[in-house]
């Protein structure tokens, strides 16, 4: 149903909507232009997405530490918005998994945010509708963490400040040193030594989990004796 070619920047899918008590709050949060006929609110599509090559990652965790550093100035596994899971005793390719936020079109984490009148977790229209958590508004209910349909949850719990956090494509990165977000730099993409993470403005197929998994291996990879498939 969601043909990627039909999903232009910022367009709203009528499948993604919110009803009832959260409508007013959401409208305030994301702008009146999101009110569709019949008082249905829709979540505008994100204008950026991370794609990963699960067969290219070397498991160095540089993206994790850089993510935490760019956002908060500390290095940490726990506070990273991208999670690289490894099992040293498993075989390729099941030994590594790269868990990135998908900036979902229907954004269950946004939908479930109970904060009123302005949601804490919402698309940021100034930065390509990236789904972001405003930690000043977050009440720490963790509903967004539970609502994320993926394992591990792509929304993290920051136990120090007792608030949720998630990937914002580096919009709020005071330590990055250059503009982030959909029009700028994503730290993990730029810093990955293997170029195993990429950024796209084209929305991957929302019905297929694997649509976020891509082959980023250029000809050099094959010449180095590693699979191109």
């Amino acid at each position, binding site marked *: 149903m969601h043909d990627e070619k039909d999903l232009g920047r910022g367009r709203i899918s009528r499948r993604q909507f919110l009803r009832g008590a959260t409508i007013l709050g959401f409208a305030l949060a994301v702008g009146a232009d999101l009110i569709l006929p019949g008082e249905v609110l829709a979540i505008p599509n994100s204008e950026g997405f991370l794609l990963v090559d699960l067969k290219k990652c070397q498991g160095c965790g540089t993206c994790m530490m850089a993510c935490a550093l760019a956002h908060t100035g500390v290095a940490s596994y726990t506070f990273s918005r991208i999670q690289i899971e490894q099992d040293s005793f498993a075989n390729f390719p099941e030994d590594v998994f790269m868990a990135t936020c998908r900036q979902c079109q229907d954004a269950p984490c946004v939908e479930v945010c109970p904060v009123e009148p302005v949601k804490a977790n919402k698309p940021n229209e100034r930065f390509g509708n990236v789904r972001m958590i405003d930690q000043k508004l977050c009440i720490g209910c963790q509903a967004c963490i539970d609502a994320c349909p993926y394992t591990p949850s792509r929304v993290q719990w920051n136990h120090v400040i007792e608030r949720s956090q998630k990937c914002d494509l580096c919009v709020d990165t005071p330590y990055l040193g250059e503009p982030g977000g959909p029009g700028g730099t994503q730290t993990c993409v730029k810093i990955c030594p293997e170029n195993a993470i990429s950024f796209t403005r084209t929305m991957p197929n929302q019905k297929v989990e694997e649509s976020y998994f891509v082959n980023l291996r250029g000809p050099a990879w094959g010449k180095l004796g590693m*699979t191109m498939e």
Partner: protein
Amino acid sequence: MSICGYAGKILRLDLATKAATAIPTEKYRRWGGGHGMGAALFWDLCKDKTITDGRHQANVCCVMTSPLNGTIVPSAGGRCEVVGVGVGMYPISWFTRSGFGGRFSTMLKHAGWDGIVIEGKAEKPVWIDIRNDRVIFRDASGLWGKDTWTTQKEIWQMVGVPRGTKTAWQELARLDKDKKSAKDEGRFTQKPAVLTIGPAGENQTAHACLIHDAGNGAGQGGFGAVWGSKNLKAISVLGTGSIRVADAKSLIRARMVTKEKYVASSERPDFRAWTRLGTLPKPIIQVPPPTKDRRPQSCQGCINGCRTRYNVGYGNESACQETAWYGPYARKVAKNAAENTEINLKAADIVQQYGFNSFVFQTGLHWLEHLYEEGVLGPGRKIPSELPWKEIGTLNFAEKLVHALSTKTDIGKDMADGWVQAAIRWGREKDLETGALQFSYWGWPEHGYDPRAELEWGYGSIMGDRDTNTHCFNQIFTSVSAAFAFAMPIRIEAEEMVNLHARKLSPYAKGRPEVLDFSDGNMYSEAVAQLVRWQQHYCRFWKQSALFCDLKWPDFYNTNTPDLQGATASPDAGEQVFWNAVTGDKLSFEDGIELGRRIWNLDNAIWVLQGRHRDMVHFAPYVYQTKFEKGELFPFYMWPCRDEKGEWKYTDLMGRALDKGKFEEWKTTFYRLEGWNRKTGWPKRSTLEKMDMTFVADALQAAKRLGEEEA
């Protein structure tokens, strides 16, 4: 003084009393981290520094991190340093070191600890379960006897962490059902980082390793035996904390510069770049890979992984030496290349699982085979052995050999204290004269970089405590020799090569390319002594305390840059740039070398207390008595040397022996430059006091081992 980059405390474990206490890291901050801190902790906490066997109960073993661990400093984030008195060396097992990679040091810091000091002996086998601030001594009776991989997997299970990937976030506090506190300690998706011994360590055999994950090992030093002597099976760490860095913005920028400027681009790949830091991902295995279905695999924060994981179920995470120890034998029996690879990689798995340091086989197995072929070793012979020697080269033989040496059975009984010790026990001292047993220094085997050719390697090893295993300059040999062997282009000619190095050899040899001239006429010179000093001091701080990876640093030359200058000491991505970004210090590259000099001096003071005197600083006799005729890797040993006209050329260094008398003169020069007494090699008070190490001078004086002042 900044504490950025540090967790702030060091865990002190007394296994005898099951006490866990914290030492403020600040107290040891002057030593930087890693080896420096570990040596200083050993100095303070080891009550008997005359011990000469690491299995002695007075031994103190320190597992230390660096401020750079757990960050994005390229190829420095994942190393970990182990120090203490070693096992299996000859004639004395010195205070020594080993290092390993992976993610243990990262997890330890995120759990809130900059290192672990291990003292005493547990009454029964224990493993240590660290979860942030909580440290639990657990019964290891169910793990004792198990291999290193099984042990780790069982510990993961006991901690409550599932195998595999795509696992859910777990709450640290909820892992412990007995815990009463409801405090939120954070969540994690990572596996516990476990450092463990296998059967080789449990049986306290020489050359037993510490193993972490599938293929990270602290090999040299015999620290597996040290842990075994303390009844310590494993340490597991889970951390949900973080490390604050002083200047995250500069740190990220420098890392980006490293990638963009110094590392070969995958878009414009240079498969044969001459650089240490900036190669394309090509795992260092000594056999053709068994499949293309594999990935590069690295330690935390590495710029380019040197290992690999396959889909075939063997060889994962093994690299370099352990993938080659069985090579000369496997290829005699393998029917084809694929089988040869399979035997070699499965042999690598065997040593990883037993926790056995395969490095000793590099020259040692040639010796054992020689004894067998000579009719001395084998069933019913002078050196009795029931191992299936006729099957050498098969996987069955490899497993039985490693088993015997790890369990003190068969010839393993005689070899448990070391290989040179076994040679003496078997009446084979002459093999150290003929070179049949090529254990060059301190009971350790020659590394493939023969001391008669590659001087800084050999001289550095004998002036230190072990096979130095520091590849600062060694890539000159491998790059140039490979180019000659395979008719590949010489990317950097000899004169330019030495000049590129000399630019970065501050402070002792800056602008002095002659320090790299290993020709016959220069091999005992003051210049070569300065090179060895530089390497020891650089390594003691930047490599073994700051924990920059030996395989990637220093980066002297780099064909990825227009001017061929590598990242080392550079103003945009040099070692000091990263150190300062993390810690907030204003350390210069040379400050780091000076710190390394102090650490090196502290080490030497410990060796002196253990009994070192210059009279015992000798290579094995064969190094003086026989010529270097057969290379491990190539039939020649290419190195930049000046000819009779003073022109630099790559020259073959094979075919010579060391002159003992001249080497003795070189030692005198080295001691003089270091400010150590020339007759004894002991540090002088004047030298130590200039480095703010009066406490060391006092201790040496009390032991009547302080070097006399000289004119």
